[in-house]
């Protein structure tokens, strides 16, 4: 993703609108006990489109805004959401996204991880209340809702950031794990890897 001033403004607008919609609208509803969370989905989508650095930075900024708007402990949401953006970006850098299921699965999985991460972090920060078994259902539901929300949101954010995505089909991706190869990575010939070998 090429970050120009215009794209930065678009990213900032996406973040602000997303946070406002979350705290003023979506947090009022519960589906099977879980509030829909759009923030991790949007951060994951930006990470998937922009890469690890963009995802991490946007996640951090979104977390700061969320914590400030809700007068919550500063740094908690930043830490969780920067992880969401970074991991989504790493996925994008290692794997080709060639179907709508991929982003939805990544967004759903990262939403689930974010919900679990919030609970774990708050427990580490001194919440001493007992934990109900219902929390597992709530976290799972958040993941499922995130998966479903990603279907409309990922294409929407891709559309908004389209001018910055000129290099999205670049063949320069590296494998996420050793041994796994991105489909777009060019295959090296054995002869080129041989020391001193000349074609």
């Amino acid at each position, binding site marked *: 993703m090429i970050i120009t001033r215009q794209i930065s403004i678009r990213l900032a607008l996406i973040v*602000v609108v997303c946070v*406002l*919609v*979350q*705290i*003023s*609208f*979506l*947090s*009022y*509803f*519960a589906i099977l*006990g879980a*509030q*829909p*969370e759009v*923030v991790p989905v949007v951060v994951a989508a930006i990470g998937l489109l922009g890469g*690890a*650095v963009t995802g*991490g*930075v946007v996640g*951090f900024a979104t*977390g*700061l*805004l969320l*914590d*400030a*708007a*809700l*007068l*919550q*402990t*500063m*740094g*908690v*949401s*930043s*830490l969780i959401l*920067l992880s969401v953006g*970074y991991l989504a970006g790493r996925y994008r850098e290692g794997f080709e996204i060639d179907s709508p299921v991929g982003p939805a699965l990544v967004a759903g999985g990262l939403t689930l991880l974010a*919900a679990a991460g*919030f*609970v774990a972090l*708050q*427990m580490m*920060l001194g*919440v*001493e*209340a*007992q*934990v*109900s*078994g*219902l*929390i*597992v259902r*709530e*976290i799972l539901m*958040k993941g499922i809702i995130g998966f479903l929300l990603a279907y409309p949101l990922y294409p929407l954010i891709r559309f908004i950031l389209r001018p910055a995505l000129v290099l999205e089909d670049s063949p320069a991706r*590296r494998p996420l794990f050793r041994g796994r190869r991105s489909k777009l990575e060019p295959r090296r010939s054995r002869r080129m890897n041989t020391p001193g070998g000349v074609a």
Partner: protein
Amino acid sequence: MYRKDVRRRRTILVALIVLSLILLSIHFSEPRSGPLHAIQRAVATVLSPFEAIANQALKPARDLINWFDETFEARGKNEQLREDLEEANAALAQAQTALGENEEFREMLDLNQNELAGFDPPFEPVTGRIIVRSPTVTNATVGVNVGSGDGVEVDDPVVAGAGLVGRVADVTSGTAQVQLITDPRSSVSVKLVPDGPQGIVEPEVGDPDDLRLDFVSNDDEISEGQQLVTAGWSNEEYSSVYPYGIPIGEVTETTLGDENFQRITVRPYAEMRALQYVQVLTGGPERPGIDE
């Protein structure tokens, strides 16, 4: 080139993580009047008009979704009403919203005239509309559109018509953050009425509908349906944030605990997820350790 990119990426990641941890540390270590809290309140103040606008702008959509939700339930109960309900969609949505709000206000008035009437000096209720809600599992907080400019202070009790909702945890000039009694950090000293024992009501993380009543001995006789009110304890140095006598909820289940205390489930009277308006109780009698 690739290694340089990886180094840059990792440097940024580490820097952001360190920055988050620094923010966390400062937030916990500095007093409420510290610079980070001041910046946070400034950002919240700047955002609050946008939150209020977004809240109002999205209210019709919220009402519509609520209406569908209620209609879905009504269909299950009485299939014959379906056609009538469909014809009256828009009008009914508005009417139900208005009725719900009226009911909330009427209950608040009853609470003010009964349970809160005996304090000297009396509490001055400030009615606020909920404009934001925290989406996270472990933060049961809401933001209301009244703040220090309206006389709201940190630790003021917050009630709805049905009973206790929580307390003010932070305040800006135009907004206040309310920590609900279902927040994992909340604990309320309570008394079972009419002549039951006292205990501590705490939430269970992940269960927003029920509360747990702790420190009630296995020997005490507790019956289902018994009402809980705030205990409002006080000595010369410290006191509870909540004054005596605000209804909280009623006992729904009791079982003998493994240790000396019973395991008691309480259903709060206030429906935390359905709240639209709350009252912040400003002023009121002096509370040692709270009002300084």
